């Protein structure tokens, strides 16, 4: 295993940070309606308190920038961070590079929760926040169910957890197909949850997700050291003083919370949780204390870029974000796997 030094870590962080800032600016500046970059910068500068109120920028442009594009990009950042960190937690926990939030059924549980509310006709209540809440509840209930199945006495078998997650997710998929066949006209709102997307979301969704992402990332920071030890093997970690059972519980809780927050506002977006941590591990090494900050920049970078592509490639038509992340992510990931195989042998 390569152990890149502190310099390489710092360099990666700087590159990711600059790339994220630039991407965010482009994502705010570009959209279905053309707004001159100068006007965009002046409005942003004004909002950041750097300059006075921009004269000559029409109100529609201001609304588009501040009420449509900014919250959308902010949400992309949060969803990317949440999915990335969640993926990192599950990969560390399962010591399996193929793990991601979907394996414990979080994503499908969230989608089922949302779909049931939509079919029962609650989609327009409380500005759609009922659906968000239901998605969240669905995600947590599924996680608890999978966890309950896999738990034997005080310990959980990681393999059983993985298998239980897959089986529960398959059951939920079947339930969703069933619900959808009775859904009639609501099929479109339902597809949103299955394909994922950040359209039609405003600041209210951002404020719903922020606390969960902050709490989840904070909890992960506290788990990072133990996660390094657990990657040596559970017995070894226990010998080194890690309370493995409690570590597993806390990791699952944090991972599920993060994934639930992301899915409840953006639907099921695949590949971010799988790819981001994996990719960054190749760059900064397997130390979770370094991987976490890298994922907090890399996850958002990936989702903001994917969303930018989703809404500009065929503009004004928008592509489903979940399809874009998989379509862009998967081939790149495969290329990288081959390219880095020699150097990365032994990682995870």
């Amino acid at each position, binding site marked *: 295993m390569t152990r890149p030094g502190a310099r390489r870590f710092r360099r990666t962080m700087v590159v990711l940070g600059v790339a994220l800032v630039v991407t965010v600016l482009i994502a705010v500046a570009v*959209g*279905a*309606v053309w707004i001159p970059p100068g006007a965009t910068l002046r409005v942003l500068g004004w909002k950041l308190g750097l300059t006075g109120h921009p004269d000559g920028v029409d*109100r*529609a*442009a201001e*609304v*588009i920038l501040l*009420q*449509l*594009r900014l919250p959308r990009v902010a949400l992309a950042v949060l969803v990317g961070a949440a999915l990335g960190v969640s993926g990192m937690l599950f990969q560390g926990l399962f010591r399996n590079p193929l793990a991601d939030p979907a394996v414990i059924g979080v994503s499908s549980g969230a989608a089922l929760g949302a779909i049931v509310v939509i079919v029962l006709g609650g*989609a*327009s209540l409380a*500005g*759609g926040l009922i659906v968000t809440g239901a998605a969240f509840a669905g995600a947590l209930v599924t996680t608890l169910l999978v966890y309950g199945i896999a738990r034997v006495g005080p310990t959980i078998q990681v393999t059983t957890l993985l298998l239980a997650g897959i089986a529960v997710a398959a059951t939920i998929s079947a339930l969703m197909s069933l619900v959808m066949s009775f859904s*009639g*006209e609501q099929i*479109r*709102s339902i*597809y*949103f949850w299955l*394909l994922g*997307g950040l*359209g*039609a*979301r*405003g600041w209210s969704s951002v404020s719903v997700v922020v606390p969960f992402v902050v709490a989840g990332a904070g909890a992960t920071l506290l788990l990072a050291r133990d996660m390094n030890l657990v990657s040596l093997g559970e017995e070894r970690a226990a010998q080194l003083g890690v309370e493995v059972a409690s570590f597993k519980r806390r990791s699952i809780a944090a991972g599920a919370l993060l994934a639930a927050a992301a899915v409840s506002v953006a639907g099921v977006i695949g590949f971010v949780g799988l790819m981001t941590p994996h990719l960054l591990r190749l760059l900064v090494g397997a130390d979770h204390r370094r991987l976490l900050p890298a994922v907090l920049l890399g996850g958002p970078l990936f989702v903001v870029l994917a969303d930018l592509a989703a809404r500009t490639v065929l503009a*004004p*038509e*928008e592509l*489903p974000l979940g399809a874009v992340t998989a379509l862009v992510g998967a081939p790149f990931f495969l290329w990288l796997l081959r390219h880095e195989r020699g150097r990365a042998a032994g990682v995870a």
Partner: protein
Amino acid sequence: MVHRRIGGIAAVLLLLFASCGETAPPRAEPTEQPSPASAFPLTITDDDGVEVTIDTEPQRIVTFAPSMTEIVFELGLGDHLVGVSGPFDDYPAEAKDVEEVGGAGDFGVDPTIEKVVSLEPDLFLTIPGGDQWKQRLRDLDIPVVTLHADTLDDLLEDIETIGSLTGAVEDAELLATRMDTEADAIAESAEVVGPVSCFFEVYYPPLTTVGPNTFIFDLLERAGCDPVTEQAKSDYPEWSVDELVADGPEVYLVTPESARSVTAVAKRPGFAGIPAIEDERVVLVDGDLVTRAGPRVIDGLRQLAAALGTG
């Protein structure tokens, strides 16, 4: 199907009609409306059950449905139209020159919110569906009005509602009255011939038709047809070919969007035994005239009556 509330009369009307439910609200009396100049601000409850207030007479209208576009043009408000949904807004020809706002969402059938905002509309007219983006538009202070017509009578009410919303009250009344008279004339001559059993194909495959609570069904009945799909439970049910053969419709109606030609229909497996096929009474009808709840449905009615032999 809209409860109207204009000034002081409104509260009383609302109290009276509130208990009637959405299915059968009595029509508001046109004579009780104040003159167009004093009609604003105007508050209505639309067919999504949402209360909308229009502050001043709209100068920048976006229509998000071809039927709405046709109504707005027919009322002489084409100059105020700043946005339409997309390429399907093709009538009248001027509609094709108006900016398109559609194409977003997972199915490409939602409006691009940015585009709508950039047009700064003071009225956004649409049909049911898309609760999420509608809420988003409302949050951005764009007045969204949803109107839905299940029947021709509903449509005439909707046209008058659009008239009140846009300050074109008199034009809307004239249009509604004219359409009503023409539809009655068609129905009267159809009654003389007596009902003909028919089947209306929306889509194939799978064979999909219209249920009794749809706009097309209402038109079919008015044109003198007795649709064999009377007992259908949903609005656009799938219909098995077996059942169709057992129903034995005398006339088979289909749009060019669903079948390329009359002979293509006859060649479909199992269709040979249907009376309409045997008697060569399969007729292609212009879908736009019967599916778009707009001013041209009268032409649609005439076309249906001609196809049914009742006109």
